[in-house]
Every structure is written in C-alpha cells, then in structure tokens.
C-alpha cells in the first residue's frame, strides 16, 4: 500500500465496502497520473505483489527503479512470427559489454562454422545428396530470414553462452536432421573454438569483417537451386557493409576486445587444429611471429629520427625477433572480391575426421564455472530478447511426411554415448533452472512462438504442444 501512497498523483481506486467480520481489502489497483486506472495491476511496481514473494519481485527490472512518468518498462513486446510488431520496441538496457554491434558478427561467423561442420559430417556419414542439400538449404534459409536479420542487427548486448547455444540448437533442428545432446555439444565446441582462433589471428581488428565475408561466400556456395536464399544472403552482405563498412579502427578494436572477452578461458582441444600445429597440446593457439604484417602496418625493425623541421636525420635498424614481410595487398570488402585472408574459409573440406578432446582443459575453467553457477536474477530479461530474436525465426513446416534422420558428430554411436557420459561437469552447457514465470500472458506468447517451431515428427518424451522457451532450455 505504501507504494501507492508515495506518488502524489497515484490515488487508490475506491474500495468496495468493508465486509462484516473480515479484514479490509487492499485496493486492487491505483489511479495513474493520467487519471485512469492502472491497466497492469499484476506487474505494477507501485503495488505489492499478491503473494509478496521477494524473489519474484526482484526479477522484474522495472521494480528496481521508482516509476517516473515517462519511464518506459524494459519489457519488450513479444512478436508473434508473421505479424507486425506493436509500435516501437523498447530500447535494450544500457550496454555493459564493450560494443553493442558485436552480435551479428558473432552469430554469422559461428553459423558459418556450423554449416562447414554439418556439411562435412553429412558427407562423411553418406547421407543421400538430396537430404543433405535440403538440410543445408533449410538451415541457411532460417539463418538469413529477413525478420531474424532485422532483429539481429539491432544494437544489443551479446547474449550469454547459454542463450547463444539455444539459438544454434534451434537452428540445427530447423530441418529434418536431428542431433543428440552429445553431438550438439561437440558441434558447439568446434564452432566456438574455430571462431575464437579466427578472431585471435586476425591481423587487423577490421579483418574480422573479412572473416565474416569469407563465411558468407562459402555459404553462397552451399545454396543450390534457390535464388531466393541467395538473395537473402546478399542482402545480409549489404547490411553488413552498411553497418560496419564505415566504422573507425577504434570501434573495430572494441568489437575485437568484446569477442575475445566472450571467448575467454575456452581451451578445448580440437584434433584438426592439433594436427595442423595451430593449437598446442595445452589448448592454446599458436601465434606465429612470421608472415605478412597487417595491411597498413610497416615491417618492424626501423627507428627513424627527425629534426625540428621534420627532416629525417638518422635511421637505425634493430633486431625485432620475428620474420615479417610486407603485406601483398588488402582484402576486398566488396560483395565479390578476393578476401586475401584465409581465416574463415572452410578447413573441413578435406574430409578429415574432426574430434574434440575434453580432458586437460579443466584448470582454466575455474572462472567459467563460477559464472554458470551463480544464479543470474536478470536471466529472464535476456530470455525476453532471445524470444524476440527467435520470434523472427521462421521455421518452415515440412510439407508431407518427410522422414527425418539423426546426424552423429562422432564416428560411431558408441563413441557418442561415451562422450555424453564422460563430458566433464564444467563443460556441460547446463542452463540455469529458472522457475516458471508468474506472467501468464507472457508465458502464452512464448508458448505460441515456440509452437510455430514445432516440427511434426519429434521424438520427444513430453511432447506437449507449445513447449515454452524455459522448458525447452531445461531439456538441453
């Protein structure tokens, strides 16, 4: 009740007459500053919740601040796929990461790596050509869906690793292919380590854009007989050029730092990297001290001294320790062109077995486990954005009884089972167990969106129609 009395304009609505022998009722709602009744009594910060559970109360971000006229709630409107959003979407909360433009680059590059790996496994497992093509086409089409791309390119923070993993889980299941938990884990490990390697080895921070373009070039190669999807990918190219083409070097440095902070402490050993001597046996990547310098950098080794008039008076060489040469040319940032950089191209096209090793990486994971164990009271906020993003994902329902198949990222089924059992605790992508939300309305919205994603023949045990987002994440 105190919340209502605090605001001078907030007057409690007239109470019903007190009943005999019963305590007086609390007002169910209050009058807003505009003079009408508050239309959201269940969520209004000025009114104490009916069951007075402090934990739930804290979960609502708007409750942390006293309501001021003009203060918008931070809860975005959930969009049902296929319909227009109702009015302008609220701004995402103030950024706590270094750069709010990092998510598209992260998503597209990880998605590209995922397609490389899936393509290689489909060939290795001798999946019939038409099914393999259909799977890749479906996943690419979902990834580059226009509405999804629109949501992705809005300035926002990076999602947590768990939230991102959920998106890729959805994406991998956008077609008739199925992946077990162990295979999905391995796929995600490979994707993240590959992109971490690419970011770390980028000569200039701006080259991460060239890496993205390499991925998109290869994705265009996967698409067959579908000019519509080709057009979607080219549209994304244009959007990337528009957003990132004019960014100054300082901004790219920030983006690079944000990505590296995201990948901090990941040291999973990947056999293809170990074989190519690109990763050491302790899980760290090899940073070469030879080769071409980045475009725009001079080969180190020269000291030049000038006088007051700017004339060079002395030139001294020194031994810098590396073996660098000048860069031959700059990679192209156009729609078509020679990117020069090899990072981001398909290294799996050699049909080599791809394994990840889990052991020996636990020492550096101490800090990671702390992050995943500590309960995050604002995880719901993130789920809202996740729901909005995935609301834009249009998964095409398969027409007719298309039989699905299961892809295995390991060489045998037994290996897959073994991997699932022996996966170290710290590396399991456990999602936080969030209690079901009190908000019935939001629950239904999320349920409706997830219902659209349902593929008909799903071998899930509790296949209740319209799994809501939280239950799906708990299943992971």
């Amino acid at each position: 009740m105190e919340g209502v009395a605090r605001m001078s304009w907030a007057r409690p609505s007239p109470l019903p007459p007190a009943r005999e022998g019963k305590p007086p009722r609390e007002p169910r709602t209050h009058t807003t500053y505009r003079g009408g009744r508050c239309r959201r009594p269940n969520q209004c910060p000025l009114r104490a919740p009916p069951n007075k559970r402090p934990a739930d109360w804290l979960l609502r971000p708007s409750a942390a601040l006293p309501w001021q006229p003009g203060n918008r709630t931070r809860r975005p409107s959930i969009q049902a796929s296929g319909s227009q959003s109702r009015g302008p979407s609220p701004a995402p909360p103030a950024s706590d990461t270094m750069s709010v433009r990092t998510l598209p680059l992260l998503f597209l590059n990880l998605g590209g790596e995922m397609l490389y790996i899936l393509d290689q496994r489909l060939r290795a497992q001798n999946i019939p050509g038409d099914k393999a093509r259909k799977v890749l086409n479906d996943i690419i089409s979902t990834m580059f869906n226009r509405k999804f791309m629109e949501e992705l390119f809005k300035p926002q923070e990076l999602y947590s690793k768990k939230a991102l993993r959920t998106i890729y889980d959805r994406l991998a299941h956008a077609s008739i292919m199925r992946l077990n938990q162990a295979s999905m884990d391995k796929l995600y490990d490979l994707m993240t380590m590959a992109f971490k390697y690419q970011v770390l080895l980028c000569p200039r921070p701006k080259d991460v854009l060239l890496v993205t373009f390499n991925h998109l070039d290869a994705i265009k190669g996967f698409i067959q007989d579908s000019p519509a999807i080709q057009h979607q990918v080219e549209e994304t190219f244009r959007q990337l050029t528009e957003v990132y083409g004019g960014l100054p070097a300082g901004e790219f440095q920030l983006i690079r730092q944000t990505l590296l902070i995201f990948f901090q402490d990941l040291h999973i050993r990947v056999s293809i990297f170990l074989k190519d001597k690109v990763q050491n046996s302790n899980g760290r990547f090899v940073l070469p001290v030879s080769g071409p310098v980045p475009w725009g950098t001079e080969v180190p080794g020269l000291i030049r001294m000038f006088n007051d008039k700017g004339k060079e008076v002395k030139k001294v060489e020194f031994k810098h320790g590396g073996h660098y040469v000048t860069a031959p040319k700059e990679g192209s940032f156009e729609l078509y062109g020679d990117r020069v950089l090899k990072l981001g191209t398909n290294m799996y096209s050699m049909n080599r077995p791809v394994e990840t090793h889990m052991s020996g990486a636990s020492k550096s994971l101490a800090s990671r486990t702390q992050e995943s164990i500590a309960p995050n009271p604002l995880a719901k906020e993130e789920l809202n954005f996740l729901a909005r993003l995935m609301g834009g994902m249009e998964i095409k329902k398969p027409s007719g009884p298309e039989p699905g198949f299961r892809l295995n990222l390991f060489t045998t089924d037994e290996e897959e089972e073994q991997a699932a059992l022996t996966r170290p605790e710290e590396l399991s992508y456990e999602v936080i167990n969030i209690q079901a939300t009190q908000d019935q309305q939001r629950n239904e919205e999320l349920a409706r969106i997830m219902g659209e994603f349902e593929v008909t023949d799903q071998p899930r045990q509790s296949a209740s129609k319209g799994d809501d987002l939280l239950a799906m994440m708990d299943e992971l």
Partner: protein
Amino acid sequence: MFRRERSLPLRGSAAALCNNLSVLQVPARNLTHFGVVHGPSAQLLSAAPEGVPLAQRKLHAKEGAGVSPPLITQVHWCVLPFRVLLVLTSHRGIQMYESDGSVMVYWHALDSGDASPVQAVFARGIASSGRFICVGTWSGRVLVFDIPAKGPNIVLSEELAGHQTSVTDIATEPAQGQDCVADMVTADDSGLLCVWRSGPEFKLMTQIPGFGVPCPSVQLWHGTVAAGYGDGQVRLYEASTGTLHVQISAHARAICALDLAPEVGKLLSAAEDTFVHIWKLSRSPESGHTEVEHCHGECVPDTQVCGARFCDPSGSSFAVTGYDLAEILRFSSV
C-alpha cells in the same frame, strides 16, 4: 639481458584489454602490488621480492540494471602526495579504493545522457597529477577529481573537453620546475593526443593530430610524449610543440601497453604480436634531439600480451600479462 623469473599465479585470466596491468611498489614494506582485469572482476595480488605471492583480492564493478554484470575496463594505482588510491573504471562508472582495495572511498556513476544506443558507455584511462586524479570517458571528456589528503571527500572539479572519440590512456609527469609547460597527455581512439598543463584549472597546450589509427597507450618523460599506436608504431613527440622526433616501427600488431622507468629513461612497449621491447631514450648533447636505442626484445610465445609494466623505477625488472593467461610473467635483468 633479461631472464624469466617465477610467475605469479592469478585466479582468473587476464582480459584482452589494453594497459591491463598496474604495478605499485611499496618499498617500505618490501612488497609489490599487481592489478589485473579479468572481465567483470579485477584481481589484486601482492608479492614479496622473490615473487612469492602473498595475498589476493578480487574487486567487482558495481552492479547495475543490465543483462550481464558490467565489465571493468582498467585498474590503476594513483600515487598522490599524501595517499595512494586504487582506481577502477568500468561500464558503470569510476570506483576509488584505498590502496589495498579494502574500502571503497568514492563512487562516480557515468552519465550516459547523450549517448546514442549504438555507443558503449565506459570510463577508461587513469592517471594522477599532483593532488588530482584524471579519468577519461567514452565521450572523450576527461574527468578531473580533486582528492583531499585524507578521507572520502572527493570532488569532481573539472571536465576537460579536447577529444571527440573515446579516451584510451592518460599519462602524467611531475612538473619539472617553474618553466614546465606540460605535464599531462591524453590519447584517444582516433590517435589524437592532447597535451595539458595541470593546476587548479587544467589548460590545453597542444594537440597532436592522429592518422586514423587508435593510440591505446601513451607515456610522458621530460617533456617528450611517447605514444604507441594500433599499427605497431611508437612515436615520440616534443610535448610543448607537438613536433615528431622519432618514429619506430616497433611491432607487427597493435601496441597494447607502454611503460616508463623514469630514473633511467627506459621505455617498455608491448603489443599483440607477442613481443615486448625495451628502448633507451636520451637527448643528444649536440643537437638536443631525442634519440632512441633498442635495448632488448623479449618474445612471450603464443601469448597476446595485454599489459606490461616495469616493476621498479630503474627498469631492471618488468612484468607482463597476456590474454587468457592466468599468471603474471616476470622478467629481471641479469
């Protein structure tokens, strides 16, 4: 010649930020303090002379409304005439602690008023000048705090406007007598350097234009500005006039940290190409020009260096941190 000493273990790895190491010498108690940013937390470590780690402490950025905990951008010890404060900058604001990190003395929240939604809001770049502590921000403004000799009564005395892009680093030097012109230099993401004179009111003396490459680290020594750039170059300018004296193609990747040993005029440069170089600065007696000589180069294999500092004012030992590395590497001269 330098040899590798015992490393100091950290509880969490160092984040891929620039200037990600701060060292405080406490000769009275024969201790050295180290400060490293992990991400959402910063670690303080104190060690005895032989590299024996003694105490560790973890500091966090103050929480705020957001999806993830705010990230720390820099941690730095500021030595003032009567006290030493530890300053922590993050995406929320500026926190100041007593030198051992035990008590927070001051908190300043950043004003994100006119930031566009695509702009990240943070503070970065910390230095002390006399009784002032200067901290840079995302907008290019430099906040100047007036620190009393004792107590938490810290006041924001000035906001310096000179930069249009985010400040990366600030360097100061004790004033060299009455005729000293400049004793503070600030650098930003566009490579622009602003040279200031400190006092009750700070005055902008010179601006040294950039060339489109960020300047992540800057140092000041006897009127010479040493700036490390994102293309691996180290440039030395005359602080009062802004003329370029020396241009060194020092590294093959972006420079992430510079440090000075003021007693001997040694400059330490570290970059993402895994190399750390030590240079000797001097003034030639005939022409009076600044000259640079390369003293030593050290390769830290497979490590993207993110912070490097001298551990003593004579430059006989230095420490290095690297991205994803959960230890502080130490080197000392033989």
